[in-house]
């Protein structure tokens, strides 16, 4: 394999460090086994463990009274890796191999085809440039082969942490749609479960650490509510066939199967799409670019909400806690007290940091998309025309800035323009909120913990859950409605509006 181009290397490095795992490249065609393991698998572990350490620091900020410190980050990092991520990954990897996920260091395997394949390929000259005919179209060579080359590699070990660490970067380009990554409906189910495993468990850890399990359950309930509603929308959308295709005589009963795998069908694909974007995983088992407009809008919007619906390992919880502080601030005022969450007053400094954390991603997403649709380089990458092309750019920046990593993959993102812009979006989208969260944690830890009374706003009941869901949805909706209206909403109306 040839050396990776600099822009792509920057993008990929940022991508894996930030737990985004956006991939501008196809794994099987670009990366050696050693790069995949040492650079990517390691970062899969470390970026997840880092976010875990951050969220633990934040929780300590809530728990500790008038304290100066937040604990030892190195120790937390080591614990997260050694006690949680590694053992779970080992077990899960073996389960996946049992289902058919490959795990070897063999060379790519040649297979003799049962029926030879004839195909066409653009002719290239000595410099690798396509040869054009008189009309300016590329000249095509017709070739025939009776050989299929199966990409191999240590897939299961990376697959396990890719899911458990909510990283999402596939060993192969097709990610979890690839049969070697996700061979059976059962492996698919287990992968979905493993995405949510740690983010959901962290809610319980939170409850336990703050000494009130109901606090954690409330966060989990808020996440679950949004998730179920969003899944319902994607599922409803994808059950419909593309009316443009049924007009051509395609059976509409089975729904929209473009970009989906037969073994998963509609339900397991839409569920996966919702889970992978609710959590900041970004692994895909269906091509989101080919989802129907509303079906594609939901994953996009779930990311735009800030990856707080379960979200990433650690990052989901701290993101949700940011929203909890926002919700508490508004609600606290409404009951006539200086807002407090878990006994800590939410004051000007906290609001400043909360604002920064909430502001940075819209800035990156909307700003980035604006640059992309204004510039020639940006427009050149769009694979689909019209409103869908806009959605591709919007999705790319939503995914990068929120560290998801999934894509409307038609976008040719492996160009210097996108590699650098998206790399920057990933970097700032990851670390600015982390800095804000750590600043809040430090400030909170130094505060005394106030006692709970009947005058304290309860942050564990259904009312708070509704409030929290409202805060997440309203902020997400108000920020992105105009952009979404010009992308998926209008496309949906164009497709079904008649």
């Amino acid at each position, binding site marked *: 394999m040839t050396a990776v181009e600099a822009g792509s290397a920057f993008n990929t490095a940022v991508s894996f460090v930030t737990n985004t795992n956006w991939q501008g490249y196809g794994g099987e065609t670009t990366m050696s086994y050693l790069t995949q393991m040492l650079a990517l698998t390691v970062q899969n572990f470390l970026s997840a463990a880092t976010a875990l350490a951050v969220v633990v620091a934040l929780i300590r900020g809530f728990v500790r*009274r008038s304290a100066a410190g937040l604990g030892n980050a190195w120790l937390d990092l080591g614990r997260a890796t050694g006690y949680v991520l590694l053992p779970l990954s080992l077990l899960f990897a073996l389960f996946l191999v049992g289902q058919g996920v490959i795990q070897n260091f063999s060379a790519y395997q040649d297979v003799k085809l049962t029926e030879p394949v004839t195909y066409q390929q653009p002719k290239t000259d000595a410099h690798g440039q396509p040869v054009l005919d008189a009309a300016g179209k590329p000249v095509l060579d017709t070739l025939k082969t009776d050989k299929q080359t199966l990409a191999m590699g240590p897939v299961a070990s990376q697959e396990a942490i890719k899911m458990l660490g909510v990283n999402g970067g596939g060993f192969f380009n097709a990610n979890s749609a690839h049969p070697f990554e996700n061979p059976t409906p059962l492996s698919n189910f287990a992968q979905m479960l493993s995405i949510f495993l740690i983010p959901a468990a962290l809610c319980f850890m939170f409850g336990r650490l703050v000494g009130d399990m109901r606090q954690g359950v409330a966060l989990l309930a808020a996440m679950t509510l949004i998730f179920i509603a969003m899944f319902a929308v994607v599922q409803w959308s994808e059950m419909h066939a593309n009316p443009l295709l049924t007009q051509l005589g395609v059976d509409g009963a089975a729904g929209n199967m473009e970009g989906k795998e037969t073994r998963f069908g509609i339900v397991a694909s839409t569920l996966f799409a919702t889970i992978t974007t609710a959590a900041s995983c970004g692994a895909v088992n269906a091509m989101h670019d080919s989802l129907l407009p509303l079906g594609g809008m939901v994953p996009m919007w779930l990311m735009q909400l800030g990856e707080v619906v379960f979200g990433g390992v650690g990052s989901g919880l701290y993101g949700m806690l940011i929203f909890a502080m926002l919700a508490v*601030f*508004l*609600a*606290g*005022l*409404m*009951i*006539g*007290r*200086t807002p407090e969450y878990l*006994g800590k007053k*939410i*004051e*000007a400094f906290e*609001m400043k940091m*909360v*604002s920064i954390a*909430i*502001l940075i991603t*819209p800035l990156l997403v*909307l*700003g980035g*998309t*604006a*640059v992309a*649709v*204004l510039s020639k380089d940006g*427009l050149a990458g769009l694979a689909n*025309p*019209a*409103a869908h*092309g*806009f959605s591709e750019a919007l999705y790319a920046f939503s995914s990068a800035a929120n560290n998801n990593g999934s894509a409307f993959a038609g976008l040719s993102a492996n160009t210097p323009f996108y590699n650098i812009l998206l790399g920057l979006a990933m970097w700032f989208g990851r670390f600015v909120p982390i800095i804000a969260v750590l600043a809040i944690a430090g400030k909170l830890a130094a505060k005394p*913990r*106030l*006692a709970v*009374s*009947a*005058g*304290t*706003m*309860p942050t564990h*009941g259904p*009312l708070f859950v509704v*409030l929290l869901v*409202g805060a997440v949805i*309203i*902020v997400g909706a*108000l920020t*992105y409605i*105009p*952009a979404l*209206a*010009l992308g998926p*909403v*209008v496309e949906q*109306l*164009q497709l079904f*509006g008649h």
Partner: protein
Amino acid sequence: MNDMTKPSSLPQHTPTQRHARALALFDPTLVKPAIAESFRKLSPRAQLRNPVMFVVWVGSVLTTVLGAQALAGQGEAPAGFILGIAAWLWFTVLFANFAEALAEGRGKAQAAALRGSRRNVVAKKLAEARHDAKVTVIDSASLRRGDIVLIEAGDTVPADAEVLDGVASVDESAITGESAPVIRESGGDFSAITGGTRVLSDWLVARVTTNPGEAFLDRMIAMVEGARRKKTPNEIALTILLVALTLIFLLACATLLPFSLYSVKAAGGGSPVGITVLVALLVCLIPTTIGGLLSAIGVAGMSRMMQANVIATSGRAVEAAGDVDVLLLDKTGTITLGNQASAFLPAPGVTEQELADVAQLASLSDETPEGRSIVVLAKERFGLRGRELHDAHFIPFSAQTRMSGVDIPAAGAVREIRKGAAEAVKAHVEALGGQWALAVYDAASEVARRGGTPLVVAEGKRVMGVVELKDIVKGGIKERFAELRAMGIKTVMITGDNRLTAAAIAAEAGVDDFLAEARPEDKLKLIRDTQAEGKLVAMTGDGTNDAPALAQADVAVAMNSGTQAAKEAGNMVDLDSNPTKLIEIVETGKQMLMTRGALTTFSVANDVAKYFAIIPAAFAATYPQLKVLDVMRLNSPDSAILSAVIFNALIIIVLIPLALKGVKYRALGAGALLRRNLLVYGLGGLIVPFVGIKLIDVALGVLGLA
């Protein structure tokens, strides 16, 4: 403090007087200057203080320029439309200015009413702290802290001061509205005198404690006046949130231009969204409702405090009042009425009715609660009615005699009736050559032992008997405490009484806890311990020995009648010196925060409807399909945008009364309160603009403007 010889230690609520001072919400005397002030506040420097409204201001300027350009024939849209938007954006800014100006005007009017009493007066400055030292007559405005002044009967107290020498009765009605004069003397807890009050009898030598302009009242006035007003911590936090929301919408609107350029190219039709429409959308989305009313809410909170005759030394204190978890309340005056006559204990040879009759006569002119209670008791027991006494000469309580009473000319002789503490009456009777009855002494001791206060009555040199005064729990106080409990506020009664008495009163009053036999240091310890549990504590105090506790408490209300040290240590001064006021203070603090939260929620919830109005309108030409989102079925794209902008401006005016009066306060637990306010202001905020924008659109249609 519950020595009965100190009259009027229990000032009562005087609601009628306070309300007389309150102005109608849109009082013409306030509205006119406020309108003028709204235009004056259009200066960019004034606008910069409020980032949200500054954005509107910039938008107004921008659209005005675009409108002028359109008039010149090069507009991006019809001039009428652009100028219509520009006009309403200017109105938005003006309405917000008006709200602020109106609140400031009210605050200043109230402060002026309070300050009315402190016109400059003549001060008699003493060369040294002696009654007979050399006197220089100067203007009160030139007094400085530390100056010594002499105030004699009939003089107005020239500045806040502390009594060094002398005892005098002082009329504080100008400040407190309470007509009964109070005694001021050096040392102890009754040594502070307030500028503007009047000395009625005797003389005082006092040291001035504040420089002109530094008095509490002046500080309070500074807090409602725009330029010098500092934002409170919570106001700052909320402003940060509002700025963040503004930035988000700025981003959403600014990026809409490139998005729309792409869309026009992609759809192959329509025209890019204009700057005017983007500005209109931005102004509609940013939280102008709360942004425009935020400072008015804060000023109104201060002004409500002043209306309650409470002067806060900082806005922070008012806010903290809303957070209080524990109220420390002095028993006497706050929880109990203090001493009320409960029994007549006649001396040997005197009937109960005779004693009652004499005691009533002695009290007819006595306006203290004790005096009134004696009149009432005599009436209840023996049907003795209050009588008009002609030619009677009333002897008011004086600090020297420590007795009060009446001289009634009757059949050539004069009936001299006196009542007072046992010691004072004994001295009086013996001076007249009368006999001090041992039985009366025993009765008085017995009353004292029961926790009551004995008042001895004598006619001439004849001791008539003892009136028993008992501590009575105030009516309605139990319900008040129950409300506080529902709000999550704990009440602790502080009393010097022994545990038994304290427990009985605590149970009767329904307080959550009590501290008996409390010394000042116990109070301080209680506050520290409570704070260590993570609770915020509020208390009232008046004595110098209360100062450390006042300084430690999170909300500390000093009685105006208290010492200078107490006032310095506290962060609020109650001009009425009414300890029950603490409860009102807490409510006012809560109300201010609630109003902010409610209007913020309302403001943000409004945005949903505005999106439904503007987005389909803005992109009608590019993507006609988006018409589906126009659920309000508005007349035209222009009318939709204009209606949203008009609604956005008018809602500020509509909500001014709410901002100034505050969200109605209810004694509910946090959960119930939140549910209620979320329903009213959250859900209401979602629905109201749909209706409002539609109505405005219909009106524009009818007027042929759209």
